[in-house]
């Protein structure tokens, strides 16, 4: 269960205070998916960062499975991410120079998982890259790189998966495949999914959606029957 309670984020710009997030609250049950929509500068990325514990709010709290993130110190928040979170970025963010397999092994090794290699191989096979294990990021296409990123995000079977415009750098067909893959794994592993997007169709595939504007939630929707197939 992911709970955001009255999240506020204000930053000082010179002598002025700029409010980036204003009183954002929501709840997301285990296994459900939430799309965060909004224009550029609406506070989406800041909210995602706060949900991951990468940044601290000016006030408010995030509870992940009843653990209050901001009561933890920085190291414990990092541990919480290691144990609970998966992340997918718009520009993939694979570690340069490491092979696809080594990239996927990374979060498992951080957990001290001794079967890291085996699990990473299986996950890469699941995302269709069983033949590309030893390829490095620069030897893979954009779609393949994002699939490695998806595999890396899901390989630890995280409780919460955060995705920041995961198809932003991909062509339509490839983006569709990635989204399908994400939702497929989300369903298989019962992972809670939060994704930031500009795409209303993609948002419609989620169980819930939320639209931000000027740092405030201006619209929250429960989708009774999320679209099962990508309409992209």
């Amino acid at each position, binding site marked *: 269960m992911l709970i955001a309670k009255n999240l506020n984020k204000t930053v000082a710009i010179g002598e002025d205070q700029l409010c980036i997030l204003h009183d954002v609250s929501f709840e997301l049950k285990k296994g459900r998916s939430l799309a965060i929509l909004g224009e550029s500068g609406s506070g989406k*990325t*800041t909210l*995602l*960062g706060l949900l*991951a514990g*990468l*940044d601290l709010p000016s006030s408010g709290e995030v509870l992940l499975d009843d653990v209050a993130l901001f009561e933890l110190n*920085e*190291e414990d928040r*990092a*541990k*919480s*991410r*290691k*144990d609970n*979170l998966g*992340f997918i*970025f*718009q*520009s993939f*963010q694979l*570690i*340069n*120079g*490491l092979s696809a397999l*080594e990239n996927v092994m*990374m*979060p498992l*090794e*951080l957990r*001290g998982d*001794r079967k890291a290699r085996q699990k990473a191989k299986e996950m890469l096979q699941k995302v269709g890259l069983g033949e590309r294990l030893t390829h*490095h990021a*620069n030897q893979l296409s954009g779609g393949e790189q994002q699939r490695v990123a998806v595999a*890396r995000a899901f390989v630890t079977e995280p409780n919460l998966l955060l995705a*920041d*415009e995961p198809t*932003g750098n991909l062509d339509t067909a490839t983006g569709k495949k990635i989204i399908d893959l994400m939702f497929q794994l989300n369903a298989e592993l019962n992972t809670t999914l939060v994704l930031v997007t500009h795409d209303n169709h993609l948002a419609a595939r989620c169980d819930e959606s939320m639209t931000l504007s000027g740092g405030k939630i201006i619209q929250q929707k429960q989708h009774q029957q999320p679209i099962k197939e990508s309409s992209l």
Partner: protein
Amino acid sequence: MSGLLLLFKIALRIFKRDWRRGDLLVLLFAMTVAMASISVIYLIIDRIESATNQEVADVLGADLVISSPEKIPQEWLLKAQQQNLNQATSVEFSSVLFANEKLQLSSIKAVSKTYPLKGRVETADTPYAKNQIQTSNPPRGKIWVEPRIFNVLQVSKDDSVELGYTHLNIAGVLMLKPGQGSTLFNIAPSAIMNIDDLEATQVIQPGSRIQYRYLFAGEPKNIQKFADEMKPLLSSSQRIVSVYDESPVAGSAVSRSKKYIGLSSLLTMILLGVTIALSANRYARRQFDLSALMRCFGLTNKEVMTIFGFILSFICISGIVLGGFFGVAVQEILVKLFADKLIDNLPEADYSVLLFPMLAAVILLFGFSAPALIQVKTVPPMRVLRRQLGPMNISSWSVYLLSGVTLIGVMWLQMGDLKLLASVLVGLIVVGLVFALIARVALKIMKSIAISRSASVNFSLRQLDANKGVTLLHLLAFSITIFVIALIVLVRTELLEKWQQSLGDDIPNHFMVNVKPQEVDELSTFFKQKELAFSGLYPMIRGRITGINGEDVKTAVSEEGQKHNSLRRELNITWAKELPEGNKVVEGNWNWQREEQENQISIEQETALALGLTIGDTLNFTIGAEQWSGKISNIRSIDWQTFTPNFYIIAKPGSMDKFSATYISSFRLPSEQKPVLAEIIKRYPSITIIELDLILKEIQNIILKVSSAVELIMVFVVAAGLGLLWAAMEHTFEAKFKQSAILRTLGASKAFIARSFRFEYIWLALLSSAMAIFAVELITYILYTQVFEIAFNLHWVLWLILPVATLIMMLSASWRGVKRVTEPSPLNLIRQN
């Protein structure tokens, strides 16, 4: 507005932006350090060299001496006048001094009023009494004579001695004169008289054996110009006398220190070249986006290059101004702090020597930045749409090669020592190739053993292999830095040790020659009573080389060989069963062949080379009135830095029995025991004692100066090395920001990230120090055996110290950087989207 002006303005704007952002900091720092280090080294070298030259001049009695068997043409002296050089003349010949119905063959020096131009003559009223410094030549009708003449002729001050057809009054005992070191084996004692009395003696007749010495002193530039003018005019019997001829020990120290300084400059250049290449590479990488954007705006490749060319010029000018300023300031401070304490009257700095550092800095910057610039030029404009697009994979080696060759050319012009340059470069190329090979294999192996239970160890090992190119670059930079620091400290330590040995408290400072065989036992008892020890008693016979394999030397030896010292004068020949200390057989076998009927001899290496002699050749000598020959059975090298009697020719014991020999020995006499000398002379009037204590002091001064130069220069090379280490470290941090952010997003703790990065530095430190040790051993072997002529041994201590020191150095240097890369919020990573 013209196109070029527009590009200039754009370049200026980018330069200002990069300055504000701090992007230029490392490159500008590298350039400033390059200029400052080279400036400091050149200024200090120049000042210490000037000081050393002064000291050398004191030994020679002038800045430049031309020695000739006949008078030199008047035009030559006019040329010296045109160069504003002071002049003095001395005419040297052997003649007999008479007094009290006794006679003594003496080496007479008739000198002009201004003699000596440099250094000093010291006299005393009685032998070994308190010395007085003389500021001019002896007045007309006066003569200064060495102590032995006092004894043999039984004269005292103001007595008259007869020389040829004239009488001269003794004005004092000659205790010290320039060039004393060279008279070591001159059996005849010396005397100095006024040149104006020479004619009256009538001793100089056509065919007399005379040596004219023309002394010149003046501004170094004028001296150099005059020497350059003279060199082509000298005949085979004329030569410019060097400090080597006057004092081989000082000459050798000066020559080795010059080589060391040359080596230091070369290594500093290499270090700074790598520093600039790394910093330029880092700067260029930061310009990829901008370059792509400019190309999108419609600028051509050439225009982009022009813009970055302008930026480099701004950096170059700023670096030269800043570096020059710091160089001059630091040099002044250092000289005030250290050099002044060691060197009296250090000459003023000559800032014109900064021209070379400027030229070198320009070549370093443009040469070593060119490959990085070309990369910027080849960034595809599509990068504005797809950031992962990098520059075209061009081969930068040709550009590096070109800049390398240019730099080598400049260094060669500056150093003029091709052997030293070639030794270091060949060594470095071999080491570089072996490094690359070993590093690749090591990285592969390390990666395959990355199955540690520690994720941070695994990650660090994989990272090294993952970025092979970057890892190799860093390994090369680190190992070169460590190698240069280790090499420069090592060579300095061994050179200083060597010099200290030649200046040690127990080295002999007096020589005894002309000891009769029957006096040896008696002398031993006398020395024992006085608690003095003399060592190495060598028989000595003087002979002149007259032929090779029966052929006259005039035809058997090349024109160049004719100039060699060994053919100009009588040589001291000895015989010995054991190889004397400081001698090393380089060809053949020392053990004399018993069955061989012919006389056998051993010859000094340089002499053999100059005269074109090999083992099996026979040398013909004239000894007294007799002819004598010896077959060369081995060739020796001699360590001229020892103050023991050294011989060009050593014969097999027994082969010179028909000649009556005298003996030569050396001993150390503390200054408070000086009266013992008078006692020896009184008891054994035929013995000549050569005092080297005063000349030793001069030599010690020279060595002290070159030692302090070596010390100071070492400090700068180490500083330049640390500069490179910093630049290389900064280069490694660049890539780590992103890695750190990704890892933290994945949940890695800061401690994990710091640990894994530090493990990387540990592997880098171990690998680079291992490679540096290999390089140090290889290059010191080449340098010691080929350039410095020092015995080579493996440096086992280095094998332990270097990895530990490197580990400590790299971990401390990376401490702040590792902290810095783990600090920024990973949120920035998401924001990049």
